[in-house]
C-alpha cells in the first residue's frame, strides 16, 4: 500500500497520471473519518469530531482538485484493458480483483474521467461546505458523533459510486448511499414518524435497486452471449481488428463484463441496424443464439436492461413512480436534505445514465422513456409544489422536478447539458435548503411558511442568499440556472428520436410548462417567507440571524450559483466539430465521445443545428411571467381577499395538490395493503398456524398425550405388571403357533 503513495522528493513535479495511484485516498479518507467518528466520537468530544469530519472531506476535496487538474491534460491517459487503445483525459486505478464466480468477475478499481472529475468537485466541495454548516446546525444535538459518522460514510459511498470503474462497484456505492440516506433520514429515530420516513425511503430505493440488479444481469448475459458468439465465429464480422478484439475477449473474463471500458467496447462493436452491417457479423437486430437469452435480439435485451436501469434510477433519483420517498425524507436534519436529497445522492441516477451514455444512445426506446418520465415527473412534482406549506417540502418537490429536467436532458442525448444542470442545481438547491435550515433555526424550527414572513429585514444574509438561489432556479439571466435549464430545453427542442417522432415535442411542451411552474412556486415560497409582514401566529416575534459558519456557507454557495453561469454560456470554446460551444460541453466532450459518434452515425437521435437564442428568449420570458404572477398573487391579490374563500376552480385542484394528488394513498391501496394482507395471512396460516401450532406445538402435544396415556401402565402394582407379561407371553405363543404351524 505504501508504494501507492508517490514520494514527493523523488518526483519534484508530479506528472498528471501519477495522481491515478492516489485515487483510493479520496474514498479512504471519509471512510476512515466515518469509522473514527462512529467509534471514538463520543470520547473525542464535539469539537474534535467536528474537526475530524470536516478535515477528511476537505482532504478529499483537495485530492479531487488534483484529479480535476490531472484530467485536464492529454497526458493523463491509460491503456484500456478492453480495447488495447489509449483512453485520454482519464485516470484509472485497478486495485485488484474483488471476486469471481465462474465466467463472471468484478474488479475493485477507480476510474476518473472528466465527467467524474466534475462530479468529484461537487460531491467533495458541497459536501465539505455542508459538513461545516452542520457543525453549527447540530451543535445542540446529543448524537453529533453518529451524525458525522453517517455523513462521512455517505460521502465515502457517493465517491465510490462516481469513481467506480465497473457497475458492480457502482452498485456498492449505490446501495451505500441508500443505506446512509436511511440512517440519516431516520436520525432522530425516537420519533416514530421520522423513523418510518427513513424506512419508506429505504424500501422505495430497494425496489429500484432490485430492478437495477436485474438490469445488470441482463447486461452480463448480453456481453457473455456476444463473447460466446465471437469465439464460436458467428459474430466474426464484429471482431475484425484482431488485437483489439483479443483484448476485449480477454477483458470480458478478466475485468468482468460490467466494467465500463468493457461495456464501451461492446457498444463500439455492435452496429445498430442492417445498414451498417459488417460482413459475417451481428447487429443489434440479430438474434442471440447462445446462452439463456437465446432467441431474443440484442437490441431488445439491451432496451430491457436499460429500462430496468431506468426503474433503478427512478428509485434513486425520485422520478415517477418511485419519487414518494423524497418529500417524506424531509424528516431528517436539513443539512442532510441539502447534501443527500439535493446535491448528491439523487443525482446518482442521472450520473448512471451519463456514465452509460454509449449504451443509452443505442436504444431509442429507452431514450424516449427516459425523456418522457423526466418530463412527466417535472410537471407532476411542480404541480404538487404549488400547494405545499412546508418550506422543506416545497424544496423537496422542486428537487424532484429539477431531476426530471435532468432526465429530459439525458433522454434526448444532451448529456453535457444534464451534467451541467446537475452541477448548477447542486449549488443553488443546497443553498436553498441550507437557507431554509437557517430560517428554521432562526424561527424556532418553524417550517410552515404561512407562519413566516417579513424575514427580509430580520435575517439579511439568509435573505440575500436565498433570493439569489431562487432567481437561479427560476432561470433568470445572468444566473447559472438559466443556461443549464435552457440548454436542456433547447436540446429537447432540436432533437428527433428515431421511432418516436412526437416524444420530443411533448417533452418540450411539458418542459416549458414545468419551467413556468418552477418560477411560480419558487417565487411563492420566497414571497411568503421573506416578504410582507410577519404572520400573526408566528412562533417567535423576532427572528435571529444564524451564526458565522452557517452564513458563510450560504454565501459561498450563492456565489457558486452565480459563477456557474460561466460554464453554460454558449459559444465560448471550440467543440468537437469545430463550432463554438459552451465551456461545459467542451470540457465533457471526451466523456461522451462514443455517444456523440453513435448519435451521428446511427441517427438514433438527431440534433439539428440551430441557434439557441429564440429558445432562450422564450424560456426567459416564461420565467419572468411565472415569477411576476406569483408576486402579484401573493403580494396583492390574496391579501386583498383575506377572509374570503378561494373560488372553486382554484380551491379544488389546490386541495388535490396539497394532498400530493393522493399518490401515497393510491400506493397504499394498490400495493401495500394487499401485500400486508398476504403477509398477515401467511403469518397467521403458515407461520403461527401451521408451523407453530401444528408442527411445533402439535409434536409436543402428541408426545404429552401419549406420555399421559402410557403413564397409566406404571401402576406400581406388581400384579398388573404380571398381567402385561402374561399377555405378552400369550402373544408370543400365538405368534409361534401361527408361523410354525405345529398342528
Amino acid at each position: 500500500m505504501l508504494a501507492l503513495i508517490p514520494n514527493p522528493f523523488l518526483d519534484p513535479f508530479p506528472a498528471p497520471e501519477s495522481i491515478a495511484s492516489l485515487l483510493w485516498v479520496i474514498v479512504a479518507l471519509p471512510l476512515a473519518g466515518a469509522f473514527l467518528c462512529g467509534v471514538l466520537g463520543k470520547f473525542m468530544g464535539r469539537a474534535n469530531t467536528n474537526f475530524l469530519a470536516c478535515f477528511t472531506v476537505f482532504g478529499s476535496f483537495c485530492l479531487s482538485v488534483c484529479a480535476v487538474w490531472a484530467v485536464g491534460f492529454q497526458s493523463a491517459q491509460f491503456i484500456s484493458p478492453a480495447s488495447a487503445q489509449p483512453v485520454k483525459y482519464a485516470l484509472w486505478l485497478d486495485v485488484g480483483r474483488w471476486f469471481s464466480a465462474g465466467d463472471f468477475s468484478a474488479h475493485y478499481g477507480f476510474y476518473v474521467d472528466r465527467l467524474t472529475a466534475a462530479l468529484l468537485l461537487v460531491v467533495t466541495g458541497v459536501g465539505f461546505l455542508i459538513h461545516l454548516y452542520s457543525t453549527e446546525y447540530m451543535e445542540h444535538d446529543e448524537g453529533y458523533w453518529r451524525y458525522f459518522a453517517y455523513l462521512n460514510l455517505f460521502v465515502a459511498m457517493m465517491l465510490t459510486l462516481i469513481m467506480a470503474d465497473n457497475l458492480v462497484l457502482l452498485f456498492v456505492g449505490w446501495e451505500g448511499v441508500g443505506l446512509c440516506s436511511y440512517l440519516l433520514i431516520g436520525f432522530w429515530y425516537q420519533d416514530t414518524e421520522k423513523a418510518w420516513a427513513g424506512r419508506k425511503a429505504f424500501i422505495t430505493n430497494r425496489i429500484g435497486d432490485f430492478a437495477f440488479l436485474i438490469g445488470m444481469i441482463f447486461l452480463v448475459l448480453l456481453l457473455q452471449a456476444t463473447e460466446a458468439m465471437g469465439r464460436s465465429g458467428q459474430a466474426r464480422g464484429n471482431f475484425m481488428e484482431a488485437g483489439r478484439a483479443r483484448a476485449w475477449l480477454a477483458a470480458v473474463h478478466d475485468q468482468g463484463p460490467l466494467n465500463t471500458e468493457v461495456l464501451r467496447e461492446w457498444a463500439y462493436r455492435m452496429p445498430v441496424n442492417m445498414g451498417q452491417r459488417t460482413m459475417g457479423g451481428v447487429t443489434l437486430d440479430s438474434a442471440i443464439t447462445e446462452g439463456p437469452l437465446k432467441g431474443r435480439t440484442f437490441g431488445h435485451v439491451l432496451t430491457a436492461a436499460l429500462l430496468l436501469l431506468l426503474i433503478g434510477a427512478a428509485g434513486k433519483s425520485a422520478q415517477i413512480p418511485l419519487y414518494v420517498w423524497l418529500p417524506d425524507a424531509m424528516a431528517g436534519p436539513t443539512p442532510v436534505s441539502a447534501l443527500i436529497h439535493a446535491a448528491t445522492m439523487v443525482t446518482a441516477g442521472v450520473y448512471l445514465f451519463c456514465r452509460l451514455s454509449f449504451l443509452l444512445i443505442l436504444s431509442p426506446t429507452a431514450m424516449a422513456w427516459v425523456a418522457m418520465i423526466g418530463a412527466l415527473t417535472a410537471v407532476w412534482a411542480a404541480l404538487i409544489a404549488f400547494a405545499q406549506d412546508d418550506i422543506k417540502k416545497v424544496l423537496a418537490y422542486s428537487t424532484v422536478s429539477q431531476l426530471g429536467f435532468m432526465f429530459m436532458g439525458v433522454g434526448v442525448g444532451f448529456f453535457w447539458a444534464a451534467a451541467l444542470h446537475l452541477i448548477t442545481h447542486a449549488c443553488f438547491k443546497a443553498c436553498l435548503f441550507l437557507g431554509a435550515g437557517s430560517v428554521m433555526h432562526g424561527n424556532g424550527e418553524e417550517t410552515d411558511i404561512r407562519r413566516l414572513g417579513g424575514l427580509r429585514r430580520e435575517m439579511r444574509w439568509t435573505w440575500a442568499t436565498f433570493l439569489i438561489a431562487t432567481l437561479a432556479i427560476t432561470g433568470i439571466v445572468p444566473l447559472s440556472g438559466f443556461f443549464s435549464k435552457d440548454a436542456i430545453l433547447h436540446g429537447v427542442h432540436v432533437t428527433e428520436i428515431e421511432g418516436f417522432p412526437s416524444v420530443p415535442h411533448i417533452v418540450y411542451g411539458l418542459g416549458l410548462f414545468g419551467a413556468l411552474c418552477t418560477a411560480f412556486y419558487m417565487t411563492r415560497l420566497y414571497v411568503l417567507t421573506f416578504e410582507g409582514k410577519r404572520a400573526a401566529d408566528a412562533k417567535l416575534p423576532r427572528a435571529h440571524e444564524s451564526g458565522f459558519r452557517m452564513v458563510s456557507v450560504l454565501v459561498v454557495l450563492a456565489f457558486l450559483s452565480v459563477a456557474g453561469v460561466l460554464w453554460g454560456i454558449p459559444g465560448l470554446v471550440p467543440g468537437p466539430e469545430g463550432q463554438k460551444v459552451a465551456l461545459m460541453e467542451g470540457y465533457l466532450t471526451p466523456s461522451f465521445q462514443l455517444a456523440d459518434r453513435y448519435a451521428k452515425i446511427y441517427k438514433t437521435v438527431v440534433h439539428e443545428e440551430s441557434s439557441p437564442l429564440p429558445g432562450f428568449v422564450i424560456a426567459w420570458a416564461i420565467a419572468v411571467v411565472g415569477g411576476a404572477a406569483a408576486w402579484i398573487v401573493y403580494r396583492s391579490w390574496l391579501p386583498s381577499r383575506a377572509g374570503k374563500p378561494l373560488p372553486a376552480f382554484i380551491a379544488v385542484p389546490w386541495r388535490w395538490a396539497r394532498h400530493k394528488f393522493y399518490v401515497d394513498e393510491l400506493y397504499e391501496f394498490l400495493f401495500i395493503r394487499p401485500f400486508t394482507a398476504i403477509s398477515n395471512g401467511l403469518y397467521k396460516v403458515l407461520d403461527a398456524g401451521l408451523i407453530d401450532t401444528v408442527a411445533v406445538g402439535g409434536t409436543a402435544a402428541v408426545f404429552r398425550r401419549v406420555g399421559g396415556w402410557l403413564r397409566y401402565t406404571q401402576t406400581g402394582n406388581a400384579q398388573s405388571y404380571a398381567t402385561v407379561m402374561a399377555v405378552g407371553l400369550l402373544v408370543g405363543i400365538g405368534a409361534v403357533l401361527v408361523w410354525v404351524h405345529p398342528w
Partner: protein
Amino acid sequence: MQGISLQHYLVLAALLFSLGVFGVLVRRNALVVFMCVELMLNASNLTFLAFARDAGMDVGHLPALFVIAVAAAEASIGLAIVIAVFRSRGTVNVDDIRTMRL
C-alpha cells in the same frame, strides 16, 4: 398305558399352568399368589417329566429336580420378604403394596 398319550399329560400340565396364571393375576393375597406360582412351577415339572418319559431318557428328570430346589429357595426368600413387608405395612394385600408407582 394304552389310551393315555403324551398329549393327555401335556394338556393336564397346560391346565395347571393356566390355573396358576389365573391365580397369580387375580388373587389379592400375596401368599396365595406365591402358591399359584408354585403351582405353575409344578406344571412345568410335569411337562418335563412327560417328555422325558416319552423320549425314554431319564436325564430329563434332572431339570425337574433343579426346579424343585430352586422353588424351595425362592419360597424361602419370598416368604421372608412377605414377612418384612407385613412388618412395615401391616398388610399383604397386593393392591395396597404399590411402591413402584410413578
